[in-house]
């Protein structure tokens, strides 16, 4: 499971080291196994979890020394373990005294606290965003940390995401897989931060939950999502890259999942008409993704990935067909194993 345990058989796609392609009968089966391997490879190791835990303790101690009434709560991907190896740590401070002080001053003081405690040498203050934060990279562990103040529902949201991860029968690992792959994909293209117009972690999770809820084969109970990871990953990129109508349709993951018409709900804003709308699971009056102004670019990139994945799939199908006719014996034999990887191509 540990990343360092993998022999460097492939630098481009190290996760495929243990994938058994030879026994696969079709393309989605191959991709299914690759997705499983990729998600295991990208999921946090014990060491990584420990380092993150330590960083959180260091930051908490430094802040409570300066603000005794402050409570530091990790939320988002730390709690749900849906973070990438280089993923941010999101912390939220709950504090009465900070609530009554000027936000920018509080952020400046916090930045100084972090610097004086030698947790980071440089701290960036982003005061103008919808949710003002400070950002820094820790000296120990080189981790990105975002801290926001008194942002109520982040912690509840983590519980709800955990509810989806554990409660959706046959879908938990599928949800984890879609989120990890979508995150890794968007992260590579710097499209996963809300303050630069990308998709935030919470939006990605809700899109994945909604995709699984709304998929006709899952909705009708015909398939176990966990046994169909390959085809579902391709259809996830297909839906949000090619067909989902961001202008008209909003997403709700409450009550078993539904879509709604943005116009009928009064969430249609002509100036921002092509923005994604996701109803906040903890507060139906709040739209969690309206800050993602770069969604058109995200959509195009997802569509591009879907195009590459389908052409790779057709190529693989051709190779599988040739193997059946005895023209090639082993997919591993005289080919580079990473040639069979679909995920490394996107």
């Amino acid at each position, binding site marked *: 499971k540990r990343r360092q345990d993998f022999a460097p058989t492939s630098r481009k796609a190290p996760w495929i080291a243990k994938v058994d392609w030879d026994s696969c009968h079709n393309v989605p089966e191959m991709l299914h196994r690759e997705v499983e391997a990729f998600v295991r490879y990208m999921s946090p190791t014990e060491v990584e979890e420990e380092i993150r835990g330590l960083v959180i303790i260091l930051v908490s101690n430094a802040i409570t020394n300066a603000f005794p009434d402050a409570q530091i709560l990790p939320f988002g991907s730390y709690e749900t373990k849906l973070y990438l190896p280089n993923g941010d740590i999101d912390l939220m401070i709950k504090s009465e005294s900070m609530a009554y002080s000027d936000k920018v001053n509080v952020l400046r003081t916090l930045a100084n606290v972090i610097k004086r405690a030698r947790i980071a040498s440089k701290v960036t203050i982003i005061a103008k965003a919808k949710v003002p934060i400070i950002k820094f990279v820790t000296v120990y562990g080189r981790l990105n940390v975002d801290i926001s103040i008194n942002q109520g529902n982040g912690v509840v949201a983590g519980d709800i995401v955990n509810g989806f991860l554990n409660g959706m029968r046959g879908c938990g690992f599928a949800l984890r897989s879609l989120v990890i792959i979508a995150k890794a994909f968007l992260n590579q293209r710097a499209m996963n931060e809300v303050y630069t117009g990308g998709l935030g972690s919470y939006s990605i999770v809700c899109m994945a939950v909604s995709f699984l809820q709304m998929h006709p084969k899952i909705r009708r109970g015909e398939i176990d999502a966990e046994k169909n990871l390959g085809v579902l990953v391709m259809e996830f990129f297909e839906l949000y890259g090619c067909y989902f109508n961001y202008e008209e349709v909003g997403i709700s993951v409450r009550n078993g999942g*539904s879509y709604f018409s943005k116009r009928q709900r009064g969430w249609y804003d002509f100036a921002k008409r092509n923005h994604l709308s996701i109803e906040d699971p903890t507060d139906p009056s709040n739209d969690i993704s309206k800050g993602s102004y770069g969604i058109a670019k995200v959509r195009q990139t997802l569509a591009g990935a879907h195009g590459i994945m389908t052409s790779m799939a057709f190529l693989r199908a051709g190779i599988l067909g040739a193997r059946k006719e005895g023209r090639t014996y082993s997919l591993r034999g005289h080919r580079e194993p990473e040639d069979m990887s679909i995920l490394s191509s996107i």
Partner: protein
Amino acid sequence: KTCPNRFSHSRLAADMIDCCDRCSSKVHKMNECPTLWRIYQYVADEDRVKIMQTREEKKKLGFGKGSEGYIASELYCYNCGNPGHLGDDCDEVAFVFDIPAEPSAFSLHNIMSGPFYDPTS
């Protein structure tokens, strides 16, 4: 259509070029057929019954207390947001982005494929 030469060699050959051998679509060739990758691993009949039962039980639990595991059954449209049909089959709102040249996962076509489709219901 009643042309006596309709099964002539040239006619057959022309059809073979036009049609996909796997799904007889005229939009793509056989080596680019979506049925090469849109393949599902279906559950057994009794598992499907169980899946639907556990969902109904989860529905009763409160949100944040277990009902997250519930999945509703009504189909919704990704194009207009309304229930009752799937996005590919929408005729309520014009398509803004790609008009599906071929059925996606969210189509009647997809529902009608697979072992659970019952044409009488």
